[in-house]
């Protein structure tokens, strides 16, 4: 007797695992992407709550609510949570969702490793945040972990080091998955110079991660052995050099800045052409500019430490190499602007966030150029000007690009349109308040207010108050973001397959139905 014994439920087009197992054992790129994005959103609010506590303490001079040790812990963990818990996982989440869809693959190349790389993160952050409950409180030496200060951290010190190791392992696995997926799973006809720019920027980001993550892992391991095993890598008493830690850390740290911003460039490069109804101006130049930025990021690290006392030749080299980064970055800004030139623009929420990114990231870039000038940097070093600079790069830069990406692709993910009016409210409130929050910090820095200080001179009061009010409005307006997403998922109107059909969305993801099927492309599409 012969018979066909395929199960009854085989007729279901989509076979999704259900219950908690769907998430614990997830190997589907969309499920893992969703978990990354939800995790990143949670961490964004946690880090944001820490930022609000910092701004609360700085609302007026004098010690208000916290002791200096706890304040320093807040500053340190705010940075670690936002960088490794919010921005990086959000980009990995977007990569998980979009890369297979954009290259015509059914999933990521290594789905189980994808699962491991996500599930490491909750453990890493539990470890980091649990240090607040230990004797001596959380890590308080700053996210840069400079010795000898970081070595005085008590019980929180090894917990922080192990947490950073886990975050690094997660990042490495994510990066390897992205590289293998993009290189080996492209649809027939999808040559490298036909890759969507989001994939290109992620490919280069993954390469940067592979190049620099061992440096971070090695650096924090040496801190650990200096503290517990009597080595003297950074201890002058044993012949070590604490300044070398700064060199090693920033050799990782500066490429890390580009790890946080290159995928943002990719997202904006997808959105601006769509809502300009024109192809991206200078695609090849954008790819080469991204690669140039990545290369230059390896040779500029010491601009973070001009004041440690390096030779004049060293200062000149790092000053000029840093300024050189403005050239490929300028190419990008020029190309985005030229893409819009004589385009038929419309201003949906993704485009609004992309435009805000363009303006405000450029402000962050310009203040970066000011900081690159070594003699001027002697004045700016360790002031609020630096805080204003990197927050302009990371918040209206990286975070706005993530929000733009979410608003751009959310209908494709969920199959529902979101409330445009609420999303525009979210945009305007965020854009205005982010400037109220961070722009006054330029003035405070130029006037000499030091960073990482819980108390300050009364002359800085007014701008600190303005900044704190801006912080509160920015924080509260992010609740609107959550509401827009929840409302979209639960009760939004049905989205069409093309989603932005009156604009010009290019790319394979728009050929899929909305919501995208569980596995993106059952058959590899042919790319012409």
């Amino acid at each position, binding site marked *: 007797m*012969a018979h*066909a*014994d395929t199960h009854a439920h085989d007729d279901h087009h989509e*076979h999704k695992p259900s219950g908690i197992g769907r998430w614990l054992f997830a190997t589907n790129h969309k499920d893992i992407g969703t978990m990354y994005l939800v995790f990143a959103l949670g961490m964004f609010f946690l880090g944001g709550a820490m930022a609000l506590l910092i701004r609360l303490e700085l609302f007026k001079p004098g010690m208000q609510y916290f002791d200096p040790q706890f304040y320093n812990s807040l500053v340190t963990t705010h940075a670690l949570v936002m960088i490794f818990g919010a921005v990086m996982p959000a980009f990995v989440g977007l990569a998980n969702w979009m890369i297979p869809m954009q290259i015509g693959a059914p999933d990521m*190349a290594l789905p189980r490793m994808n699962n491991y790389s996500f599930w490491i993160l909750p453990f890493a952050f539990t470890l980091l945040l649990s240090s607040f409950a230990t004797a001596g409180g959380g890590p308080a030496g700053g996210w840069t972990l400079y010795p000898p200060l970081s070595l005085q951290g008590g019980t929180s010190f090894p917990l922080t080091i192990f947490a950073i190791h886990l975050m690094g392992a997660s990042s490495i696995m994510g990066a390897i998955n992205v590289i293998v997926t993009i290189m080996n799973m492209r649809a027939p006809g999808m040559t490298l110079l036909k890759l969507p720019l989001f994939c290109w920027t992620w490919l280069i980001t993954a390469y940067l991660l*592979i190049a620099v*993550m061992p440096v971070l892992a*090695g650096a924090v391991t040496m801190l650990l052995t200096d503290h517990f095993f009597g080595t003297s890598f950074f201890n002058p008493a044993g012949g070590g050099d604490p300044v070398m830690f700064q060199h090693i850390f920033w050799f990782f740290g500066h490429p890390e800045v580009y790890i946080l911003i290159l995928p943002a460039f990719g997202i904006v490069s997808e959105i601006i052409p769509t809502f300009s109804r024109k192809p991206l101006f200078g695609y090849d130049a954008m790819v080469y500019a991204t690669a140039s930025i990545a290369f230059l990021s390896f040779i500029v690290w010491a601009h973070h430490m001009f004041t440690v006392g390096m030779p004049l030749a060293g200062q000149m080299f790092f000053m000029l190499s840093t300024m050189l980064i403005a050239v490929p970055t300028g190419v990008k800004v020029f190309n985005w602007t030229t893409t819009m030139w004589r385009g038929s623009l419309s201003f949906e929420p993704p485009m609004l966030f992309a435009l805000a990114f363009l303006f405000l990231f450029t402000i962050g870039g310009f203040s970066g150029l000011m900081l690159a000038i070594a003699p001027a940097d002697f004045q700016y070093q360790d002031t609020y000007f630096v805080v204003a600079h990197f927050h302009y790069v990371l918040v209206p830069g990286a975070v706005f690009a993530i929000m733009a990406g979410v608003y751009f692709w959310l209908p494709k993910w969920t199959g529902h349109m979101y409330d445009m009016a609420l999303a525009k409210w979210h945009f305007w409130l965020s854009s205005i308040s982010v400037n109220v929050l961070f722009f006054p910090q330029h003035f405070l820095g130029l006037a000499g207010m030091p960073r990482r200080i819980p108390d300050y001179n009364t002359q800085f009061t007014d701008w600190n108050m303005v900044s704190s009010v801006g912080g509160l409005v920015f924080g509260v307006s992010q609740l609107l973001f959550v509401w827009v997403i929840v409302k979209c998922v639960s009760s939004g109107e049905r989205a069409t397959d093309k989603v932005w059909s009156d604009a010009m969305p290019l790319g394979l993801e728009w050929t899929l139905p909305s919501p995208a099927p569980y*596995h993106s492309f059952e058959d590899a599409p042919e790319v012409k």
Partner: protein
Amino acid sequence: MPHNGATESHSHVDVATRPLRRIELLANCSLSARDARRLFALCAGSALTVAACCVANGYWPVLPFAGLELVLLGFALAVSLKRRHYVQTVDIGETGITITTRDSHGERATRFSRHWAKVTLRDPRGWQPSRLLIESHGRACEIGAFLTEERRRALGRRLSALVGRGSDLPALEPAGREDSRDCGEQ
């Protein structure tokens, strides 16, 4: 892959009856082995150059981390590249079914009587994806292990229709070859 003592041969298939339908399963791989080596060399060159500079200055703990990372990258590339060698052909004739599997270990063929064969799709369990099998007399051969769930289920339905049920064998018209190109899962 053959299971439970399935017949195997290492030569080209001698189909008992002329195949009337052929389904060929291919994995989609955009990276050649040569390009994979170049990619690995690029990543290894950067990571090891940086690590070597650190070692030269006495900061040797960077090196083992770079090494570990490159081992993982090499493993990931190797696993992903294995798919390019994987081709599975299902030949369905009037009385027989022959499944030929070609991978990096060579070529194997498994034959079943069409009258006795049955197509089974086993549900996924935990980490394990579903398994599509052709079985008969305690022997089984897995088909399309690298396909996605949906693709595997669609293939299961297609094979069920072609293989038929015992006394109700559908007539097969010669219809050439069906290709199924997919990027499979690990």
